[in-house]
């Protein structure tokens, strides 16, 4: 047992390491950041939602930094695109922290977090499940390569177009800025990195080549999550250093094991399992919102 100085509660060290290790394992297995599993897992452990969101961001910063070091060696980062996404992300996370603080004062933060997770987990879970089902049935899916035909999207018609040599694109700066802003806002409110929304958006919306997508999104996630940690520390004082250290330790070790075991397994089966897991987790969020509460009154503003 260790006492968390900011969350002001004792937690079992072993339990937190096991949970963060398991989340890291799953993220390494499937190749996702894992913030969107870590934050709800912490909430289920009894950590107050504001602390879970703000502290989870520090673990995302650690994971994305170790990822970006690998990607830089492979020259798989489009720095110019990453910079634009990050500028949008910086503004977005600042607005997200502001919204977070307002919701905390209004007593509606838990509701908004639950609703966003409900939509997010069920959406991603359903996508993963249907994708893996299609792969297992042997049907050819609409691959990324087909979609990368020189189709013009809105990104190609808007003004302020500049060249992105690394991605081989000549598009407007507005979509990357807007995309970065949206992801940054979500990241600050939900305690996620946002890579799993950012990556499809970069492929389908910006038409970036897949080989630079992961590295570039990691760059944006790193900048945004680092900023979220600093802003949340200053604005809401909900970052718990002791909890953060435990999450980093468990998450990093778990991710290494996950990545190694994931290399020898069938990808579509793992994704299908994770999809089912996410849908179950979203049902839990839905259940808590829909069933009539046993205790109709709640205490609010526990941290104020």
């Amino acid at each position, binding site marked *: 047992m260790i006492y968390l*100085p900011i969350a002001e509660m004792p937690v079992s060290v072993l339990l937190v390491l096991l949970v963060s290790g398991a989340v890291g394992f799953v993220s390494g297995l499937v190749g996702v950041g894992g913030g969107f599993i870590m934050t709800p897992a912490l909430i289920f452990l009894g950590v107050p939602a504001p602390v879970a969101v703000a502290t989870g961001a520090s673990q995302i910063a650690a994971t994305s930094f170790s990822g970006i070091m690998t990607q830089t060696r492979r020259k798989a980062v489009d720095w110019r695109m990453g910079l634009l996404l990050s500028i949008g992300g910086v503004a977005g996370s600042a607005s997200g922290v502001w919204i977070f603080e307002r919701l905390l004062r209004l*007593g509606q933060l838990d*509701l908004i977090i639950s609703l966003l997770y409900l939509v997010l987990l069920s959406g991603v879970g359903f996508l993963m499940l249907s994708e893996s089902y299609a792969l297992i049935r042997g049907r050819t899916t609409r691959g990324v390569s087909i979609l990368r035909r020189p189709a013009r999207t809105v990104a190609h018609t808007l003004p302020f177009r500049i060249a992105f040599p690394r991605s081989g694109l000549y598009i407007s700066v507005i979509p990357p800025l807007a995309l970065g802003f949206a992801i940054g806002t979500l990241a600050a409110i939900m305690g996620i990195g946002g890579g799993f929304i950012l990556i499809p958006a970069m492929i389908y919306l910006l038409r970036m080549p897949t080989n630079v997508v992961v590295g570039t999104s990691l760059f944006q996630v790193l900048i945004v999550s680092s900023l979220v940690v600093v802003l949340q520390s200053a604005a809401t004082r909900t970052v718990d250093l002791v909890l953060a250290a435990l999450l980093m330790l468990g998450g990093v070790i778990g991710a290494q094991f996950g990545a190694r075991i994931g290399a020898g397994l069938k990808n579509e089966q793992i994704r299908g399992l994770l999809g089912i897991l996410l849908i179950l987790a979203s049902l839990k969020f839905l259940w808590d919102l829909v069933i009539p509460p046993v205790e109709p009154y709640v205490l609010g503003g526990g941290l104020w």
Partner: protein
Amino acid sequence: MKRALAALAFALCCATASAQQPGDMLNDLPAAVAEEQITVSSDYRGSYITVFGVNPDRRGRGDIVVVVRGPSEGAVVMRKRRVFGLWINGDPVEFAQAPSFFAVLSNRPLRQIANAQSIWQYQLDPAASAQLASSVPAGGDPSAYRRALVRLRYAQGLYQSYAGQPRPEQRGGLTMYQGGLFRAVVRLPANAPIARYNADTYLFRDGRLISSQRIPITISRVGIERRIHDLATTASWAYGIMTVLLALFAGWVAALIFRRT
């Protein structure tokens, strides 16, 4: 009816406001606490507060009431309401003052020791110390919010009450010994706020307060817990940057190890 309730609530508020200082402490009851300093370190899992004293009456007449109070703070209570099939928090109702921790111990049920007016005057009940600060949503009952606050805090272990001899299986309660000696044990849960507390001891006879004593108890962080908390509150920007640097270091170490193997 609604107007009468509002008037009653107003009267109760005024009563609490006038008796806000449970200050008419006489400080003449011989009592002491075993732990005037409680420290919170990384292995903190809550603590116990032991108050002991002597009933000065030679024949042992009178009733002993011990109250351990945490600092009064604002509190918010919300009632869930159904919107589009979802249960969401309704408008927040604020309390300007509510004890953050409240444990009351007595040698027999409190209502047999003092009348309702004395209980309110000396704030021997957590509900007596909670001051409503905002109006409740339309159709809401102010006293229901007050009761809910007390009930929820009881469930969290932040409010406690013990009457009579403690049961053998639980630690916590008021024990009376021969010669007027008494000992009160209060379980301080880990979620109780870290602050200055007061242990107040009262002697009642025939429903009147005869003597009382107030003893301060300080709960404070020590060691690394204190450093982290001080840094997070006084230098929050530096604290945030430090957390990010720790994260970058952890990521860097992970990437190095990963490359080796």
